[in-house]
């Protein structure tokens, strides 16, 4: 098979992995003497596909041959898709050729499991090693870490890669054993734990070395952009409560940078054991919003989950508004007096505007028009905020009525 055909097969096989982030890496640059590439910590999306998703990295599988038979996966053993395998050098050359033309920030390499987890991991690591050592590549590298791969290989992977990830795919043991019999949550979690411990040790070593060694003597930061994982949404009946509870546990235990939620897409020659739905894109979006609330707005998974009667997020209402509607007594919040944590709970006001509000109210009292000038979403916020010249008249409005008025399709009919 020629290179272009392999590329078609192995990019197609990689497209169900949602992650394409290229952010968070330690700053690097090339110099006139050596090296190609740089990272700034800020990711760059070099293109967008017609699915609206960012193309930042060359996202490939080294091979889509696989020993496993995970039912949700297009590359499972029993799937009837064309198979291909790159030589190590082919991936290296593609990465460099694309990078020099400014198509990409770097490489995201994953692989089907061939022969054994260790063998597979060795091949993946060999690509990263060649890029870093043979070609002095200073762009971004994200390596998929194969669960159950040897600790030594994970250590090597972390040395070459900016980001490592281990995909848990499903939020519970029951789901995994039903759909991915060769996978286990504890193998994935143990690998995450190893990466977490290795990063922590690296930080400690670096701290101890400060002053004692010149900066250049310290080896590259172990996986400086941290680790992430992916959960597949809608392949089975796992609830959003299960996804969010699992995600918050992973954030706490292994200091994950991101949990990606990937709406399950119809795949060629699907397993009969899967749900027949189209990709649940709205649900995926709501999960990301809830995840955002956990990471940046100070919400616990438990308090979000507690507002979900069926265990699933409301598709019509974003989870922040959902929480607000379930906690009417918490509101209205006075933007001129409330602490930051309370401001963060107001629907329609985001982290950045909370910062603006806090800075501005040191100078003067905020009025309703100020929130409009800052472009707060007042269709949502107005029922929940107090300003110098505004008190919401909605205290007596029943929650279902308020909800109806706030759902975008029926916007503002109440007032």
């Amino acid at each position, binding site marked *: 098979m020629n290179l272009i055909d392999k590329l078609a097969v192995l990019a197609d096989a990689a497209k169900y992995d949602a992650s394409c982030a290229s952010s968070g890496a330690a700053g690097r640059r090339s110099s006139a003497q050596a090296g190609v590439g740089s990272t700034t910590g800020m990711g760059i999306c070099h293109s*967008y596909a017609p699915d609206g998703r960012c193309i930042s990295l060359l996202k490939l599988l080294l091979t889509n041959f696989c020993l496993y038979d995970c039912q949700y996966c297009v590359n499972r053993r029993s799937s009837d898709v064309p198979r291909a395998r790159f030589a190590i050098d082919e991936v290296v050359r593609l990465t460099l050729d694309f990078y020099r033309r400014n198509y990409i920030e770097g490489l995201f390499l994953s692989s089907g499991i061939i022969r054994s987890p260790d063998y597979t991991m060795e091949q993946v690591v060999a690509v990263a090693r060649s890029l870093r050592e043979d070609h002095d590549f200073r762009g971004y590298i994200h390596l998929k870490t194969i669960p159950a791969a040897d600790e030594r290989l994970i250590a090597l992977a972390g040395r070459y890669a900016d980001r490592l990830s281990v995909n848990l795919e499903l939020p519970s043991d029951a789901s995994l054993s039903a759909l991915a019999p060769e996978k286990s949550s504890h193998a994935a979690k143990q690998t995450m734990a190893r990466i977490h411990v290795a990063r922590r040790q690296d930080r400690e070593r670096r701290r101890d070395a400060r002053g004692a060694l010149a900066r250049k003597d310290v080896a590259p930061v172990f996986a400086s952009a941290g680790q992430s994982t992916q959960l597949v949404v809608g392949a089975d009946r796992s609830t959003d409560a299960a996804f969010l509870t699992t995600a918050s546990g992973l954030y706490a235990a292994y200091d994950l940078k991101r949990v990606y939620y990937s709406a399950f897409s119809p795949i060629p020659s699907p397993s009969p054991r899967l749900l027949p739905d189209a990709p649940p894109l709205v649900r995926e979006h709501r999960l990301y919003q809830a995840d955002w609330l956990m990471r940046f707005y100070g919400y616990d998974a438990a308090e979000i989950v507690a507002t979900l009667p069926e265990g699933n997020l409301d598709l019509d209402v974003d989870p922040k508004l959902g929480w607000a509607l379930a906690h009417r007594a918490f509101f209205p919040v006075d933007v001129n007096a409330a602490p930051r944590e309370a401001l963060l709970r107001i629907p329609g006001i985001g982290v950045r505007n909370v910062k603006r509000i806090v800075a501005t109210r040191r100078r003067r009292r905020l009025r309703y028009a100020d929130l409009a000038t800052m472009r707060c979403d007042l269709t949502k916020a107005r029922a929940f905020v107090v300003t110098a010249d505004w008190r919401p008249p909605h205290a007596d409005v029943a929650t279902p009525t308020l909800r109806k008025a706030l759902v975008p399709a029926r916007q503002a009919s109440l007032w």
Partner: protein
Amino acid sequence: MVSAHDAFTAWRAESRRLLRAGIPPHAAPWDAWAGVGGLWSDPAPAAGADDAPSTPVASISPQALDLFRLVSAHRDPSRHARMYGALWRMTHGERGLLDDAADADVIALTRMAKAVSRARHKMTAFVRFRRVGTEAGERWIAVFEPEHDVLALTAPFFVRRFATMDWTLVTPDGCARWDRRRLALFAVADAPPAPSEDAAESLWLTYYTSIFNPARLNVATMEREMPRAYWKLLPEAAVIPALVVAARDARPPTLAPIAAAPAPGRGMQRAAAARHCAVAPADDSTRDDGTASDDLPFPDKSRLDGCRRCPLGGRATQGVPGEGPPNARVMLVGEQPGDEEDLAGRPFVGPAGKLLRRAIAEAGGDATTVYITNAVKHFSFELRGKRRIHKTPAQREIEACRLWLEAEIEQVRPVQIVALGATALAATLGRRVRVGEARGTALRHGSGAGVTATYHPSAVLRAPDEARKRELYAALVGDLRRALGAGGED
């Protein structure tokens, strides 16, 4: 000739002159500056008219300086006047103007700066180099049309990234060339001929086509993030229309109806509860029903990893088996793995473990000759924010795990068992006894082994004051000394 950067310097000089002369914004002659900017436009009207180098007349914050520098690259002809208006206010009693995020001038300038930053960012993203082989070696040339006048602001990014390449950026405002030694800015008139193709582009289009997921077609988001204005210079844009049409025409693959996925929500928990005894078999011969009450196999790593006799197994990273010689005479039993032990998969590797080893050494023992394990083999915790906080295991969790402990005792056959803390004591004896009361009394496990009750090393670490800490530690060392002695005598 004025580059964007120079345009900023010129604006700065002119605004200093105006400030010094006390000319308020409405009287400032910025209309004449409408054409300034663009890398190679005519000289700014005032440039050189003032005494150069111009001297400061007032101080403004570094944030304001950065803001002006960005806004200066905006293509809006009113930018100079707007910047001067804000500068006037900052130097006339409103030094902290930028903190007022709801002020109309601040908002207008911030928005312009944001637009420039975005144009700069999009330039770092959407520039596409084509390779040209020449006798002198290879050159890389990109033609690009930035939304604002950001070439000079953005060229250093490409220097840092492609320092070993000889590259040229060609924009309608001017060109930038890096020849691997220095960066030169020059006029469009001197631009090299643009290459019409590149050897890698067919691979790139193949990649772009294959990484697209037609089931998630979302043209609006693509166009918002990659505006059409940029398309004519992006090679991959050529295939977009065909991809969109094909995705709209394609019917999603028909999927067969669901069969064997797990039941939802509470149903799933019930199902799990019904199977709460299930132990994932390490091999086919391993019993997996847990119904027999008295003979589980030895709890090795894989058996514990798969153990779902209680809910802890599903939440923890892994099972933490005991460690030590398989025929050790003394077995130490702790409560449960903590955060560190859960991550490492080994018992007593955290702070309590360190203290325990010190206590063993002080008691005259050798930590490598004793068998160290826990009453509960998985980490029990509750989430508090972004941390996992130790939570004392529940009685049923201790019960569920007791058979594993029994299997360990059965296999190791210690002479002495040291129960560290209440949970270990309850698990070893099969009944609740207070550690304070049990210490120093003669206790025996069903296997005949002596049982020494003592404090858990964590109790020492958590002691409220130094005196209590010393007291508990001394008690722990004393109890260990007796147990190790008894274990050695037999």
